[in-house]
């Protein structure tokens, strides 16, 4: 039913989405915490920057990331100056592009969760001599648990479903950057609709199970930023 290439795209996609989700949480939690607590004038700018990938079409983001990260782009030249390789057309490049693309899906639910805690539990903890770090790790994080879970699931699912940006940055290279969505595209272009239907069916089923599990969790708030 599924070819060897189909399977390799599935493993590659899951591999990519797992790495991206972990990194997104590492980056997203501090950003969300800062956004939720700050009164800085930069809050508006940072929020807008984080939300930007929601608005730009993925192929457009992909095109500009390609220019930015390519050998003639500022980031690409900096990477070369550091002696590191170029990012486009590599797995690492896909990771970077996906981080950027899925960031709002992770930051916003966590930020909402932090904001809904309010300052009172943290103040109470402070009167009990909890340091700022302790307040964050022992009070804020546990209370924001369901928001973080939502963020992780959305970040993962959104990365699995990417197309335009990975086609542009990844170059659709077998075993390196060819993810499920690109394989479906190849099947459709090769007029092999049956094979495309199988893979798309698997993707749908997977997404349904993930979202169903998420929505079935007890005491879960509705997701504000759906994919």
């Amino acid at each position, binding site marked *: 039913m599924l070819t060897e290439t189909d399977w390799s795209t599935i493993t590659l996609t899951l591999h990519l989405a797992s790495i991206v989700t972990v990194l997104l949480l590492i980056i997203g939690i501090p950003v969300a915490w800062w956004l939720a607590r700050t009164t800085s004038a930069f809050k508006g700018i940072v929020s807008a920057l984080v939300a930007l990938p929601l608005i730009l079409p993925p192929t457009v983001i992909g*095109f500009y990331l*390609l*220019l930015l*990260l*390519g*050998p*003639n*782009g500022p980031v*690409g030249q900096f990477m070369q100056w550091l002696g590191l390789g*170029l990012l*486009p*057309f590599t797995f690492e490049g896909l990771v970077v592009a996906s981080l950027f693309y899925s960031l709002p899906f992770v930051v916003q639910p966590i930020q909402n969760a932090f904001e809904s805690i309010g300052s009172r539990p943290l103040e109470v903890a402070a009167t009990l001599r909890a340091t700022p770090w302790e307040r964050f790790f022992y009070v804020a994080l546990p209370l924001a648990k369901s928001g973080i879970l939502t963020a992780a699931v959305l970040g993962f699912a959104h990365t699995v479903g990417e197309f335009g940006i990975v*086609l*542009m940055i990844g*170059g*659709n*290279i*077998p*075993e390196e950057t*060819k993810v499920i969505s690109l394989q479906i*595209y*190849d099947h*459709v*272009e*090769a*007029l*092999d609709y049956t094979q495309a239907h199988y893979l798309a069916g698997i993707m749908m089923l997977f997404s349904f199970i993930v979202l169903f599990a998420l929505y079935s969790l007890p005491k879960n708030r509705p997701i504000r930023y759906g994919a």
Partner: protein
Amino acid sequence: MNQFKLLTLIILTCLSISPSQAHADNALVAVASNFTLTMKKLVTQFHEETPHTLRVSFASSGKFYAQIKNGAPFDLFLSADQLIPTKLLSEGYAVPNTQATYAIGKLALWSSDPNKVDPMGNILKSKTFNKLALANPKLAPYGFAAIETLEKLNLMESTKPLWIQGENIGQTYQFVRTGNADIGFVALSQIQNHQELSTGSMWEVPNDLYSPIKQDLIVLKHGENNAAVQAFLNYLALPKTQKLIQSYGYHTEFN
């Protein structure tokens, strides 16, 4: 550092003179999506007959252009037109004297309904269709050929309100295949499999109604001394390979 370099050099030398590596090489080939079906077949046969390995990426020629200019590691590029290979050559991304026409596309007016399109294409005049799908003439050579045909037949004005434009020829095919457009100008290669119409009805547009849709390949700087690329180019020139390409609905320059 020097020792490390020396070691790398020794390893590389050993690899290059070991018997299995002496002949077999790897190449990464960028192929315009309209050639996907044919290319998959070609690559399967090429792998059976030679020790080389090709890995193939499919996307639109315009995307490949942007990617190659930004350092994509492709060795060989099979474009959907002649313009992009020429541009890549003049901008220094391709190897001079390697540009060649590997296929010439044929235009067809097609419907997924077996009784819709008559063999003379008179349906275009009859207006018994809801929509006419064609590829965006600015982006896709097949779209441009469709416009040329309509102009020659003096049908631009009468059909224009019924046009729906696909981003590329693949999307145009989908409009017709799914029945959303009754008829559409598609590539013969999309609807013909081993010289037979797979489904529906069609009119093969005569050659004199549009300029040839030449698809060129070019060797990229990255693949300049790649043995697999060389072997594949030789393989493409074989009469039986040309026959195979023709059986998928293209003309070829030779034979």
